[in-house]
């Protein structure tokens, strides 16, 4: 049961879902074929969601398609990598005082009909960061064997580092509460495969993590951008980052009023 994964209880919490301002952050790089569908699905799943698309240096019509669909579009002047794009969205969420932000991939992997499960722990004040795990509950995640093993190995390492059992540290289907938005808008890992580092940072700076089961879909369009040498490079980079992170203090103090 995912409920058992709560290690600590988030302070405060957002009581009552009515009137909470929610935003979906959709980082996108050349996703003109899937972006409109993703935005429409988010709206269909929960009309209260604002959608902000972070166009991370696309060379196709991603930004135009997103704007046509009525999303807010932030166009970065050049590619920052997924970490920089997500952080841009979190800064937008902070400046416009959103209570909840969720990260939804632009390739259609994340199913917006599962947003209520993802938001529930934040609305209930049980967690600051909620991660949609592919390995909790109903398992039908189809991925190459090597990828699945890699995810498991990382999960074991990160669980040990943060002292809390986690099953899926690289899932980017995530929800953030106010405290997490405030912290991550200032300190978020750069580059690619940033979600693993973000998990460690969250736990180190005192944010409460919780996993909920989600089922991911096959991507609507395109292939995974990870080739084997690139995967190895990022694995090493993330392991070094996680190791150094253990000895690091938080960059910022979390303030209860932020």
């Amino acid at each position, binding site marked *: 049961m995912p409920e058992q994964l709560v290690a600590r209880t988030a302070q405060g919490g957002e009581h009552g879902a009515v009137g909470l301002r929610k935003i979906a952050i959709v980082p996108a790089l050349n996703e003109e074929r899937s972006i409109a569908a993703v935005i429409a699905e988010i709206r269909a799943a929960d009309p209260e969601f604002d959608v902000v698309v972070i166009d991370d240096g696309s060379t196709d019509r991603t930004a135009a398609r997103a704007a046509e669909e009525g999303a807010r579009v932030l166009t970065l*002047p*050049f590619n920052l990598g997924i970490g920089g794009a997500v952080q841009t969205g979190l800064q937008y969420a902070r400046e416009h005082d959103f209570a909840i932000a969720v990260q939804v991939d632009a390739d259609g992997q994340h199913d917006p009909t599962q947003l209520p499960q993802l938001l529930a722990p934040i609305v209930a004040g049980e967690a600051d960061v909620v991660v949609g795990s592919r390995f909790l509950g109903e398992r039908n995640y189809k991925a190459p064997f090597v990828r699945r093993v890699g995810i498991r190995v990382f999960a074991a390492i990160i669980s040990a580092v943060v002292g809390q059992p986690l099953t899926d540290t690289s899932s980017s289907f995530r929800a953030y509460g106010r405290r997490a938005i405030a912290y991550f808008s200032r300190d978020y890992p*750069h580059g690619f495969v940033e979600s693993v580092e973000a998990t460690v940072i969250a736990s180190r700076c005192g944010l409460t993590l919780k996993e909920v089961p989600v089922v991911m879909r096959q991507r609507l369009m395109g292939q995974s951008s990870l080739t084997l040498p690139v995967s190895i490079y990022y694995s090493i*980079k993330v392991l*070094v*980052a996680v190791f*150094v992170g253990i000895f*690091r203090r938080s*960059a910022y103090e979390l303030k209860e009023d932020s």
Partner: protein
Amino acid sequence: MTLRVSIFAAIAALILLAVVFELMRSRRLQERYALLWLLTGLVVFVLAVWRGLLGWASNTVGIAYPPSALFVLASFFVLMVLLHYSTVISRLSEQNTALAQRLALLEHELEQTRSRD
């Protein structure tokens, strides 16, 4: 290779590793720029400690005096780091140009919007 050279090289490599680690810990060095330095430190350390491997390697490439091989290798890695920096600087200057251009366009846009009000 004398034991003294080995010990000296090993200590130097460890100091390099410690400095890089501390720079990363205090957030003055990002992981992506630290990886080459860490690799440099590790390779020099391994070769300093494992003298058989260094001897074999220098023999293979025809270097009579193994410690020279260590220096050749270390300079090779420093060269790699420098080359890496050249690419990083190129990317940064390109992005800097893009930012300045974007800023100029935005300022112009802002002025137009203001004067219209």
